[in-house]
């Protein structure tokens, strides 16, 4: 491909208002045609319009952004599936794009296709070095910026954003997982290719190399699920808890099922009104707006972090070591979405 000597293709894209600040793979017609081989779908098929700018995302334009992000063609089905889910009403992409909060759509991918393409859920899964993780999440972000206009200072009022806005896509740990996957727990079969997507902050880490039994361990993890300044305490909000396999095995060896751990975390994670009033986002009107009944005038009233058990996305991910990652959620009326994607 000949490029006019006067145009530096990298600078051309780096100067775009929608650039994420990193170079892209230059989209040429030849590269686009190669990327489109990653799907059987018609390139002109409309996936949807990306709020708030409402520019259309067709299979072709999704493929273009996937290619710019550095995806291989076999990753394209995940990008298409992820965007489709995120454009569902209940996910509230419009609110997601404009919010002051620093949250990003974290994709958790289950099923055989994720394994085939090398989506990583083991050690280092939230960080660099895994092409599928890095580029699939990045493709989504490039579309949110370019097609949706979710650019800070433009449509986005985000105060800090989050490093997860560069990319946020992981698998679960498939080698060291004592329980069924997130997808199976939601009723899918182990052979289904499923994406779950939740709007969450960057992970905070709960280290515990002391607990040898679940009660103390889950107490500590639950403590990381609450904070005066966390929107989980002041609204209905999703949360992702990625138990490291070492922590998960402590629970499994004590004969706790995945559902048992999920339920216990929902019970434990919370604070009393007297503790929440002293800082952060506490307002009694917010508590009165919960979908569960609480008494904001009773100092001993326990406010749970998880208002609906469906809002806790419990997975097993990460490498071996005494650590669990907890991602707090958003308050803006977004509900986690999940569904099969077509390969």
């Amino acid at each position: 491909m000949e490029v006019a000597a006067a145009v530096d293709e990298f600078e051309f894209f780096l100067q775009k208002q929608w650039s994420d600040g990193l170079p892209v793979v230059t989209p040429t017609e030849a590269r686009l045609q190669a990327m489109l081989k990653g799907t059987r779908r018609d390139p002109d098929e409309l996936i949807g319009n990306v709020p708030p700018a409402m520019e259309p995302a067709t299979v072709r334009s999704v493929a273009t952004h996937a290619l710019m992000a550095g995806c291989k063609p076999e990753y394209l089905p995940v990008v298409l599936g992820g965007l489709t889910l995120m454009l569902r009403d209940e996910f509230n992409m419009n609110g997601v794009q404009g919010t002051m909060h620093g949250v990003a759509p974290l994709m958790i991918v289950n099923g055989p296709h994720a394994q085939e393409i090398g989506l990583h859920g083991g050690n280092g899964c939230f960080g660099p070095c895994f092409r599928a993780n890095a580029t699939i999440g990045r493709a989504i972000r490039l579309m949110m910026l370019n097609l949706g206009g979710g650019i800070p200072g433009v449509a986005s009022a985000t105060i800090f954003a989050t490093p997860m806005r560069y990319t946020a896509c992981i698998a679960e740990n498939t080698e060291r997982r004592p329980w069924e996957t997130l997808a199976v727990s939601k009723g899918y079969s182990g052979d289904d290719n499923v994406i779950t997507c939740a709007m969450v902050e960057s992970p905070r880490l709960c280290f515990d190399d002391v607990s040898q039994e679940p009660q103390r361990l889950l107490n500590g993890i639950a403590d990381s699920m609450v904070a005066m300044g966390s929107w989980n305490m002041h609204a209905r909000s999703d949360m992702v808890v990625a138990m490291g396999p070492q922590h998960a095995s402590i629970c499994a060896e004590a004969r706790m099922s995945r559902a048992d751990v999920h339920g216990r975390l929902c019970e434990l994670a919370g604070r009393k009104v007297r503790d929440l009033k002293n800082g952060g986002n506490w307002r009694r009107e917010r508590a009165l707006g919960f979908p569960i009944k609480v008494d904001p005038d009773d100092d001993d009233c326990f406010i749970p972090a998880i208002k609906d058990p469906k809002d806790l996305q419990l997975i097993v991910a990460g490498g071996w070591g005494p650590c669990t990652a907890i991602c707090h959620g958003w308050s803006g009326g977004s509900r986690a979405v999940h569904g099969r994607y077509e390969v």
Partner: protein
Amino acid sequence: MCSVHDTIEFEKRGIPATVIITQAFRKAAIFQFGSKGMEGHPYIELPHPISNLKPEEMKELTLRFVDQAVRQITA
């Protein structure tokens, strides 16, 4: 944000409308009006933040903007 969307929906139905926003969302509001075909649509901008204003303060602040709002929805 969505209040901009709602304002535009009123205008499309022939109902003159305006929206009250806070300063921190000015750029987002301008962008949304523009991207939805109503570039330059007026709005009322309150200083940010307002969430910690006491009721009397909020009322007093609001009253300062009533005339401006009326100008935006009348000829």
